[in-house]
Protein backbone atom coordinates (compact mmCIF):
# COMPACT_ATOMS: atom_id res chain seq x y z
CA UNK A 1 0.00 0.00 0.00
CA UNK A 2 1.23 3.49 -0.80
CA UNK A 3 1.07 6.63 1.27
CA UNK A 4 1.30 9.90 -0.62
CA UNK A 5 2.22 13.30 0.83
CA UNK A 6 -0.09 16.01 -0.53
CA UNK A 7 1.27 18.92 1.51
CA UNK A 8 4.34 18.71 3.72
CA UNK A 9 4.70 21.92 5.72
CA UNK A 10 8.10 21.59 7.39
CA UNK A 11 8.28 17.91 8.22
CA UNK A 12 11.10 15.47 8.92
CA UNK A 13 11.23 11.74 9.52
CA UNK A 14 12.55 10.82 12.97
CA UNK A 15 12.81 7.85 15.31
CA UNK A 16 14.61 7.11 18.61
CA UNK A 17 17.87 8.30 17.12
CA UNK A 18 21.29 7.11 16.11
CA UNK A 19 23.28 5.94 19.10
CA UNK A 20 26.86 4.81 19.53
CA UNK A 21 28.43 6.85 16.74
CA UNK A 22 29.55 9.87 18.79
CA UNK A 23 33.13 8.70 18.51
CA UNK A 24 33.03 9.29 14.73
CA UNK A 25 31.28 12.66 14.93
CA UNK A 26 27.67 11.59 14.48
CA UNK A 27 24.97 13.22 16.63
CA UNK A 28 22.16 11.37 18.42
CA UNK A 29 19.53 13.05 16.29
CA UNK A 30 16.07 11.40 16.59
CA UNK A 31 12.71 12.93 17.49
CA UNK A 32 13.08 16.39 19.03
CA UNK A 33 10.32 15.49 21.50
CA UNK A 34 11.09 11.88 22.38
CA UNK A 35 8.16 11.63 24.79
CA UNK A 36 5.49 12.52 22.21
CA UNK A 37 7.27 10.24 19.73
CA UNK A 38 7.24 7.30 22.15
CA UNK A 39 3.61 7.88 23.10
CA UNK A 40 2.59 7.88 19.43
CA UNK A 41 4.37 4.56 19.00
CA UNK A 42 2.82 3.06 22.14
CA UNK A 43 -0.65 4.04 20.94
CA UNK A 44 -0.03 1.68 18.00
CA UNK A 45 1.62 -0.99 20.13
CA UNK A 46 4.98 -0.22 18.57
CA UNK A 47 8.36 0.88 19.96
CA UNK A 48 10.45 2.64 17.35
CA UNK A 49 8.39 3.07 14.21
CA UNK A 50 9.65 6.15 12.29
CA UNK A 51 7.40 9.18 12.70
CA UNK A 52 6.63 12.28 10.69
CA UNK A 53 7.87 15.15 12.85
CA UNK A 54 5.62 18.01 11.77
CA UNK A 55 7.39 21.19 12.78
CA UNK A 56 5.38 23.86 11.03
CA UNK A 57 2.58 24.35 8.52
CA UNK A 58 -0.18 22.18 7.19
CA UNK A 59 0.54 18.50 6.53
CA UNK A 60 -1.71 16.36 4.33
CA UNK A 61 -1.59 12.77 3.16
CA UNK A 62 -3.61 10.08 1.45
CA UNK A 63 -3.19 6.31 1.36
CA UNK A 64 -4.08 3.86 -1.40
CA UNK A 65 -5.74 1.49 1.10
CA UNK A 66 -6.63 1.49 4.84
CA UNK A 67 -3.90 2.45 7.30
CA UNK A 68 -3.60 2.80 11.06
CA UNK A 69 -2.14 6.00 12.45
CA UNK A 70 -1.44 7.72 15.78
CA UNK A 71 -0.97 11.44 16.31
CA UNK A 72 0.55 12.99 19.43
CA UNK A 73 1.11 16.71 19.86
CA UNK A 74 -0.54 20.06 20.17
CA UNK A 75 -2.33 19.91 16.84
CA UNK A 76 -5.62 19.76 15.03
CA UNK A 77 -6.36 16.67 12.90
CA UNK A 78 -8.96 16.44 10.19
CA UNK A 79 -10.09 13.39 8.18
CA UNK A 80 -12.13 14.33 5.10
CA UNK A 81 -13.21 17.63 6.72
CA UNK A 82 -14.23 15.96 10.02
CA UNK A 83 -12.27 16.94 13.10
CA UNK A 84 -10.74 13.86 14.79
CA UNK A 85 -9.10 13.53 18.21
CA UNK A 86 -5.34 13.61 18.42
CA UNK A 87 -3.54 11.57 21.12
CA UNK A 88 -5.33 8.46 19.83
CA UNK A 89 -4.73 5.71 17.30
CA UNK A 90 -7.30 5.27 14.55
CA UNK A 91 -7.84 3.93 11.09
CA UNK A 92 -7.94 6.01 7.94
CA UNK A 93 -9.59 4.50 4.91
CA UNK A 94 -8.29 4.33 1.38
CA UNK A 95 -8.37 7.71 -0.37
CA UNK A 96 -9.37 9.59 2.78
CA UNK A 97 -7.46 12.84 3.26
CA UNK A 98 -5.70 13.23 6.64
CA UNK A 99 -4.77 16.81 7.51
CA UNK A 100 -2.64 17.84 10.50
CA UNK A 101 -2.09 21.42 11.60
CA UNK A 102 0.19 22.20 14.56
CA UNK A 103 -1.44 24.69 16.96
CA UNK A 104 1.72 25.95 18.63
CA UNK A 105 5.46 25.87 18.09
CA UNK A 106 6.04 22.34 19.45
CA UNK A 107 6.49 19.48 16.95
CA UNK A 108 3.66 17.02 16.34
CA UNK A 109 4.26 13.32 15.73
CA UNK A 110 2.34 11.23 13.23
CA UNK A 111 3.20 7.55 13.19
CA UNK A 112 1.77 5.44 10.37
CA UNK A 113 1.99 1.80 11.45
CA UNK A 114 4.23 -0.22 9.16
CA UNK A 115 5.80 2.62 7.20
CA UNK A 116 8.93 1.59 5.31
CA UNK A 117 11.86 3.96 5.71
CA UNK A 118 15.44 3.10 4.77
CA UNK A 119 17.69 3.31 7.81
CA UNK A 120 21.12 4.91 7.86
CA UNK A 121 23.46 3.62 10.57
CA UNK A 122 20.62 1.90 12.38
CA UNK A 123 18.21 4.81 12.39
CA UNK A 124 15.55 6.37 10.18
CA UNK A 125 16.21 9.81 11.66
CA UNK A 126 17.01 12.93 9.70
CA UNK A 127 20.06 14.63 11.17
CA UNK A 128 19.78 18.27 10.09
CA UNK A 129 23.37 19.11 11.06
CA UNK A 130 25.05 16.41 8.99
CA UNK A 131 22.28 15.82 6.42
CA UNK A 132 22.19 12.12 7.32
CA UNK A 133 19.09 9.95 7.02
CA UNK A 134 15.87 10.44 5.03
CA UNK A 135 15.47 13.71 3.14
CA UNK A 136 13.03 16.29 4.51
CA UNK A 137 9.48 15.39 3.47
CA UNK A 138 8.05 17.21 0.43
CA UNK A 139 4.72 17.11 -1.41
CA UNK A 140 4.61 14.19 -3.83
CA UNK A 141 6.77 11.87 -1.67
CA UNK A 142 5.47 8.32 -1.54
CA UNK A 143 6.05 5.67 1.13
CA UNK A 144 5.26 1.97 1.30
CA UNK A 145 3.08 1.01 4.29
CA UNK A 146 1.84 -2.23 5.85
CA UNK A 147 -0.36 -1.43 8.85
CA UNK A 148 -1.26 -4.99 9.85
CA UNK A 149 -1.32 -5.83 13.58
CA UNK A 150 -1.32 -2.25 14.87
CA UNK A 151 -3.65 -1.21 17.71
CA UNK A 152 -6.75 0.88 17.01
CA UNK A 153 -8.67 2.93 19.56
CA UNK A 154 -5.86 3.54 22.04
CA UNK A 155 -5.77 6.90 23.77
CA UNK A 156 -3.71 8.86 26.30
CA UNK A 157 -5.05 9.07 29.85
CA UNK A 158 -2.60 11.82 30.79
CA UNK A 159 -2.62 15.03 28.83
CA UNK A 160 0.81 16.23 27.75
CA UNK A 161 1.81 19.81 28.55
CA UNK A 162 3.15 21.63 25.49
CA UNK A 163 4.14 24.80 27.33
CA UNK A 164 7.28 24.02 29.34
CA UNK A 165 7.96 26.79 31.88
CA UNK A 166 10.91 25.22 33.70
CA UNK A 167 14.04 23.36 32.61
CA UNK A 168 16.12 21.68 35.32
CA UNK A 169 19.83 21.21 34.86
CA UNK A 170 22.94 19.84 36.53
CA UNK A 171 25.41 22.63 37.22
CA UNK A 172 28.76 22.26 35.47
CA UNK A 173 32.22 22.56 36.98
CA UNK A 174 32.83 25.91 35.30
CA UNK A 175 31.08 28.36 37.56
CA UNK A 176 28.82 30.28 35.23
CA UNK A 177 25.38 31.00 36.63
CA UNK A 178 22.62 30.57 34.06
CA UNK A 179 19.78 30.07 36.57
CA UNK A 180 16.76 32.34 36.33
CA UNK A 181 14.26 33.66 33.81
CA UNK A 182 14.86 33.42 30.07
CA UNK A 183 13.11 33.82 26.75
CA UNK A 184 13.85 31.72 23.70
CA UNK A 185 15.31 33.66 20.80
CA UNK A 186 15.57 30.87 18.23
CA UNK A 187 14.73 27.17 18.40
CA UNK A 188 16.02 24.48 16.08
CA UNK A 189 16.93 20.82 16.33
CA UNK A 190 20.55 21.93 16.69
CA UNK A 191 19.98 24.22 19.65
CA UNK A 192 17.91 26.77 21.52
CA UNK A 193 19.43 30.24 21.59
CA UNK A 194 18.47 32.25 24.69
CA UNK A 195 17.61 35.92 24.67
CA UNK A 196 20.21 37.66 26.80
CA UNK A 197 23.78 37.50 27.99
CA UNK A 198 25.33 36.31 31.23
CA UNK A 199 28.55 37.83 32.55
CA UNK A 200 31.60 35.82 31.44
CA UNK A 201 35.26 36.48 32.15
CA UNK A 202 36.99 37.87 29.11
CA UNK A 203 39.02 35.28 27.26
CA UNK A 204 36.89 32.46 28.65
CA UNK A 205 34.72 30.37 26.42
CA UNK A 206 37.26 29.34 23.82
CA UNK A 207 38.49 25.95 24.93
CA UNK A 208 40.13 23.01 23.21
CA UNK A 209 37.28 21.01 21.66
CA UNK A 210 35.72 18.52 24.06
CA UNK A 211 32.77 16.13 23.89
CA UNK A 212 29.29 17.68 23.86
CA UNK A 213 25.84 16.21 24.45
CA UNK A 214 22.23 17.30 23.91
CA UNK A 215 21.13 19.45 26.86
CA UNK A 216 24.54 21.07 27.35
CA UNK A 217 24.10 24.79 28.06
CA UNK A 218 26.94 26.34 26.08
CA UNK A 219 28.12 29.84 26.88
CA UNK A 220 30.22 31.30 24.05
CA UNK A 221 32.47 34.37 24.59
CA UNK A 222 29.49 36.65 23.80
CA UNK A 223 27.79 35.32 26.95
CA UNK A 224 24.57 34.45 25.14
CA UNK A 225 23.79 30.80 25.98
CA UNK A 226 22.70 28.09 23.56
CA UNK A 227 21.14 24.88 24.85
CA UNK A 228 22.28 22.08 22.55
CA UNK A 229 19.53 19.88 21.12
CA UNK A 230 19.31 16.49 19.37
CA UNK A 231 21.21 17.37 16.18
CA UNK A 232 24.00 19.36 17.88
CA UNK A 233 27.65 18.62 17.06
CA UNK A 234 29.45 15.92 19.06
CA UNK A 235 32.27 18.23 20.14
CA UNK A 236 32.56 21.94 20.87
CA UNK A 237 34.92 24.53 22.25
CA UNK A 238 32.64 26.72 24.35
CA UNK A 239 32.21 26.68 28.11
CA UNK A 240 29.36 24.50 29.37
CA UNK A 241 27.47 26.04 32.30
CA UNK A 242 25.38 22.94 32.94
CA UNK A 243 23.42 20.14 31.29
CA UNK A 244 19.62 19.90 31.16
CA UNK A 245 18.45 16.66 32.80
CA UNK A 246 17.62 13.84 30.41
CA UNK A 247 14.04 13.51 31.67
CA UNK A 248 13.39 17.02 30.34
CA UNK A 249 15.26 17.02 27.03
CA UNK A 250 11.94 16.58 25.21
CA UNK A 251 10.87 19.94 26.64
CA UNK A 252 13.39 21.76 24.44
CA UNK A 253 10.81 21.38 21.68
CA UNK A 254 7.97 22.50 23.96
CA UNK A 255 9.42 25.63 25.57
CA UNK A 256 7.02 28.42 26.47
CA UNK A 257 7.99 31.91 25.28
CA UNK A 258 9.32 32.60 28.79
CA UNK A 259 10.80 29.89 30.99
CA UNK A 260 13.26 29.47 33.82
CA UNK A 261 16.43 27.44 34.23
CA UNK A 262 16.82 25.84 37.67
CA UNK A 263 19.82 23.84 38.92
CA UNK A 264 19.02 20.51 40.60
CA UNK A 265 20.86 17.58 42.18
CA UNK A 266 21.72 14.31 40.47
CA UNK A 267 19.24 12.67 42.83
CA UNK A 268 16.53 14.92 41.38
CA UNK A 269 17.52 13.92 37.84
CA UNK A 270 17.29 10.26 38.80
CA UNK A 271 13.80 10.62 40.29
CA UNK A 272 12.62 12.69 37.34
CA UNK A 273 13.74 9.92 34.98
CA UNK A 274 11.93 7.24 37.01
CA UNK A 275 8.81 9.39 37.15
CA UNK A 276 8.89 10.04 33.40
CA UNK A 277 9.24 6.33 32.57
CA UNK A 278 6.29 5.57 34.86
CA UNK A 279 4.13 8.26 33.25
CA UNK A 280 4.98 7.23 29.69
CA UNK A 281 4.28 3.54 30.22
CA UNK A 282 1.06 4.09 32.19
CA UNK A 283 -0.58 6.83 30.16
CA UNK A 284 -1.48 4.78 27.10
CA UNK A 285 -4.86 3.06 27.42
CA UNK A 286 -6.00 0.48 24.90
CA UNK A 287 -9.70 -0.46 25.17
CA UNK A 288 -9.11 -3.93 23.72
CA UNK A 289 -6.55 -4.70 26.38
CA UNK A 290 -8.42 -3.51 29.45
CA UNK A 291 -9.30 -7.09 30.31
CA UNK A 292 -12.66 -8.70 31.07
CA UNK A 293 -14.57 -6.28 33.29
Amino acid sequence: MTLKIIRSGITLIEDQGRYGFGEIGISHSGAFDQVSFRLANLLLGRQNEPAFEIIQGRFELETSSDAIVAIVGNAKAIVDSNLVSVNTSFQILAKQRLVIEPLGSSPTYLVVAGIQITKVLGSASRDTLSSLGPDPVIAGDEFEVDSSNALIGSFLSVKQDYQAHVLHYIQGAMKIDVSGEWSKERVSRIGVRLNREVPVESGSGNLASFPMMPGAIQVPPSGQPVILAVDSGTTGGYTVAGVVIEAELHKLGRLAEKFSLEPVSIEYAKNAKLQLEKTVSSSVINPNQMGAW
Partner: protein
Amino acid sequence: MRAQVSQYGERSVLIELEQVKPVSVIDSFRSLFPKAEVRSGLNTLMITFPEIFDHTELVESSLAKVEAVESSTKTRTLVIETEYTGEDLEKVCEKLGITRAKLISAHTAITWQVALIGFAPGFPYLVPLDETQEEARLLAQIPRLEVPRAKVPAGSVAIASGMSCVYPSSMPGGWNLIGRTEQIFFDLNNQESPALLQAGDLVRFEELKS
Protein backbone atom coordinates in the same frame (compact mmCIF):
# COMPACT_ATOMS: atom_id res chain seq x y z
CA MET B 1 48.14 9.93 36.51
CA ARG B 2 47.19 13.54 37.20
CA ALA B 3 43.84 14.80 35.95
CA GLN B 4 40.88 16.97 36.89
CA VAL B 5 37.63 15.02 37.11
CA SER B 6 34.28 16.77 37.15
CA GLN B 7 30.65 15.78 36.85
CA TYR B 8 29.21 16.53 33.41
CA GLY B 9 25.44 16.13 33.26
CA GLU B 10 23.77 13.35 35.24
CA ARG B 11 25.62 10.31 33.87
CA SER B 12 28.98 11.56 32.62
CA VAL B 13 32.28 12.82 33.93
CA LEU B 14 34.76 15.00 32.09
CA ILE B 15 38.44 14.24 32.67
CA GLU B 16 40.89 17.03 31.93
CA LEU B 17 44.24 15.42 31.33
CA GLU B 18 47.40 17.23 32.34
CA GLN B 19 50.37 15.40 30.87
CA VAL B 20 49.09 12.69 28.60
CA LYS B 21 47.12 12.69 25.38
CA PRO B 22 43.56 11.38 25.55
CA VAL B 23 44.24 8.78 22.83
CA SER B 24 47.05 7.28 24.88
CA VAL B 25 44.78 6.49 27.84
CA ILE B 26 41.38 5.95 26.17
CA ASP B 27 41.82 2.16 25.93
CA SER B 28 42.87 1.96 29.55
CA PHE B 29 39.72 3.83 30.65
CA ARG B 30 37.61 1.61 28.39
CA SER B 31 38.89 -1.52 30.05
CA LEU B 32 38.42 -0.01 33.52
CA PHE B 33 34.80 0.91 32.75
CA PRO B 34 33.61 -1.62 30.17
CA LYS B 35 29.94 -0.65 30.48
CA ALA B 36 30.56 3.04 29.92
CA GLU B 37 31.02 4.98 26.69
CA VAL B 38 34.37 6.79 26.49
CA ARG B 39 34.86 9.64 24.01
CA SER B 40 37.87 11.85 23.50
CA GLY B 41 38.32 15.59 23.25
CA LEU B 42 41.58 17.37 22.45
CA ASN B 43 42.75 17.43 26.10
CA THR B 44 39.82 15.64 27.64
CA LEU B 45 37.94 12.38 27.92
CA MET B 46 34.25 12.02 28.62
CA ILE B 47 33.00 8.86 30.28
CA THR B 48 29.26 8.28 30.11
CA PHE B 49 27.88 5.64 32.45
CA PRO B 50 24.61 3.77 31.99
CA GLU B 51 23.18 4.85 35.34
CA ILE B 52 22.42 8.31 36.76
CA PHE B 53 24.95 8.89 39.53
CA ASP B 54 27.83 11.15 40.58
CA HIS B 55 30.75 9.09 39.31
CA THR B 56 33.54 11.61 40.01
CA GLU B 57 34.94 9.82 43.08
CA LEU B 58 34.91 6.46 41.36
CA VAL B 59 36.81 7.84 38.39
CA GLU B 60 39.24 9.83 40.58
CA SER B 61 40.11 6.74 42.57
CA SER B 62 40.76 4.81 39.38
CA LEU B 63 43.29 7.30 37.98
CA ALA B 64 46.19 5.47 39.63
CA LYS B 65 45.34 2.36 37.61
CA VAL B 66 45.34 4.11 34.25
CA GLU B 67 48.22 3.23 31.98
CA ALA B 68 49.31 5.47 29.13
CA VAL B 69 50.56 3.97 25.91
CA GLU B 70 52.39 6.19 23.44
CA SER B 71 51.37 4.15 20.44
CA SER B 72 50.84 0.43 20.31
CA THR B 73 51.60 -2.11 17.61
CA LYS B 74 47.89 -1.99 16.78
CA THR B 75 48.19 1.65 15.73
CA ARG B 76 47.38 2.10 12.06
CA THR B 77 49.23 4.56 9.85
CA LEU B 78 47.46 5.97 6.83
CA VAL B 79 49.22 7.80 4.02
CA ILE B 80 47.16 10.51 2.35
CA GLU B 81 48.19 11.58 -1.12
CA THR B 82 47.65 15.29 -1.33
CA GLU B 83 47.84 17.87 -4.08
CA TYR B 84 49.08 21.05 -2.44
CA THR B 85 46.86 23.42 -4.38
CA GLY B 86 44.73 24.89 -1.55
CA GLU B 87 43.24 28.35 -1.84
CA ASP B 88 45.05 29.63 1.25
CA LEU B 89 48.43 28.08 0.47
CA GLU B 90 50.01 31.30 -0.78
CA LYS B 91 48.70 33.40 2.10
CA VAL B 92 49.95 30.87 4.65
CA CYS B 93 53.42 30.84 3.07
CA GLU B 94 53.46 34.63 3.05
CA LYS B 95 52.52 34.79 6.73
CA LEU B 96 55.28 32.35 7.66
CA GLY B 97 57.77 33.92 5.24
CA ILE B 98 58.55 30.56 3.63
CA THR B 99 58.34 29.05 0.14
CA ARG B 100 55.62 26.72 -1.05
CA ALA B 101 58.16 23.87 -1.12
CA LYS B 102 59.11 24.54 2.51
CA LEU B 103 55.48 24.49 3.62
CA ILE B 104 54.86 21.20 1.82
CA SER B 105 57.95 19.64 3.33
CA ALA B 106 56.86 20.77 6.80
CA HIS B 107 53.32 19.37 6.42
CA THR B 108 54.61 16.06 5.00
CA ALA B 109 57.42 15.76 7.58
CA ILE B 110 55.02 15.65 10.52
CA THR B 111 53.50 12.39 11.73
CA TRP B 112 49.96 13.36 12.67
CA GLN B 113 47.73 11.59 15.15
CA VAL B 114 43.93 11.60 15.11
CA ALA B 115 43.06 13.28 18.43
CA LEU B 116 39.36 12.96 17.85
CA ILE B 117 36.66 12.71 15.24
CA GLY B 118 34.20 15.52 15.80
CA PHE B 119 32.50 18.62 14.45
CA ALA B 120 31.02 16.61 11.57
CA PRO B 121 30.80 12.90 10.67
CA GLY B 122 34.28 11.53 10.05
CA PHE B 123 36.04 14.90 10.51
CA PRO B 124 39.52 14.18 11.97
CA TYR B 125 41.35 16.60 14.26
CA LEU B 126 44.99 15.78 13.57
CA VAL B 127 47.69 16.83 16.03
CA PRO B 128 51.45 16.36 15.57
CA LEU B 129 52.62 13.21 17.34
CA ASP B 130 55.59 15.26 18.49
CA GLU B 131 54.47 18.84 19.10
CA THR B 132 58.03 19.98 19.81
CA GLN B 133 59.15 19.04 16.29
CA GLU B 134 60.44 22.10 14.42
CA GLU B 135 57.96 21.70 11.55
CA ALA B 136 55.06 21.37 14.01
CA ARG B 137 56.08 24.56 15.80
CA LEU B 138 56.31 26.36 12.46
CA LEU B 139 52.76 25.42 11.37
CA ALA B 140 51.40 26.16 14.86
CA GLN B 141 51.82 29.88 14.11
CA ILE B 142 48.85 29.78 11.75
CA PRO B 143 45.52 30.53 13.48
CA ARG B 144 42.03 29.83 12.17
CA LEU B 145 40.58 32.15 9.53
CA GLU B 146 39.06 35.36 10.88
CA VAL B 147 35.96 34.74 8.79
CA PRO B 148 35.03 31.10 8.16
CA ARG B 149 34.09 30.00 4.64
CA ALA B 150 30.43 29.18 4.04
CA LYS B 151 31.45 26.17 1.98
CA VAL B 152 34.66 24.16 1.95
CA PRO B 153 34.87 21.44 -0.75
CA ALA B 154 35.07 17.79 0.31
CA GLY B 155 38.62 16.44 0.39
CA SER B 156 40.17 19.78 1.37
CA VAL B 157 43.31 19.43 3.47
CA ALA B 158 43.67 22.29 5.93
CA ILE B 159 45.66 23.58 8.90
CA ALA B 160 44.89 25.83 11.88
CA SER B 161 46.07 26.29 15.49
CA GLY B 162 48.80 23.67 15.21
CA MET B 163 46.40 21.05 13.87
CA SER B 164 45.57 19.65 10.47
CA CYS B 165 42.34 18.18 9.12
CA VAL B 166 40.62 16.84 6.04
CA TYR B 167 37.04 17.91 5.29
CA PRO B 168 35.19 14.61 4.71
CA SER B 169 32.30 16.35 2.95
CA SER B 170 31.42 19.82 1.78
CA MET B 171 30.62 22.05 4.77
CA PRO B 172 31.35 25.45 6.34
CA GLY B 173 34.85 25.75 7.78
CA GLY B 174 37.39 28.10 9.30
CA TRP B 175 40.70 26.32 8.64
CA ASN B 176 43.33 27.38 6.10
CA LEU B 177 43.03 25.29 2.93
CA ILE B 178 46.41 24.08 1.73
CA GLY B 179 45.60 20.99 -0.34
CA ARG B 180 43.19 18.43 -1.73
CA THR B 181 42.90 14.67 -1.60
CA GLU B 182 40.79 12.12 -3.46
CA GLN B 183 40.73 9.87 -0.38
CA ILE B 184 37.18 9.24 0.95
CA PHE B 185 36.98 9.89 4.71
CA PHE B 186 33.31 9.18 5.35
CA ASP B 187 31.38 6.58 3.39
CA LEU B 188 27.84 5.60 4.31
CA ASN B 189 28.03 2.57 2.02
CA ASN B 190 30.30 1.13 4.66
CA GLN B 191 27.70 0.84 7.43
CA GLU B 192 30.06 -1.11 9.69
CA SER B 193 32.61 1.69 9.97
CA PRO B 194 31.71 4.69 7.79
CA ALA B 195 34.58 6.82 9.12
CA LEU B 196 37.98 6.04 7.61
CA LEU B 197 39.85 7.13 10.71
CA GLN B 198 39.43 6.72 14.44
CA ALA B 199 41.01 8.45 17.41
CA GLY B 200 44.60 7.26 17.86
CA ASP B 201 45.32 6.48 14.19
CA LEU B 202 48.49 7.97 12.67
CA VAL B 203 48.44 9.94 9.43
CA ARG B 204 51.18 11.05 7.04
CA PHE B 205 50.61 13.34 4.07
CA GLU B 206 52.46 12.70 0.83
CA GLU B 207 52.69 15.18 -2.01
CA LEU B 208 50.93 14.16 -5.19
CA LYS B 209 52.30 16.27 -8.00
CA SER B 210 49.63 17.40 -10.43
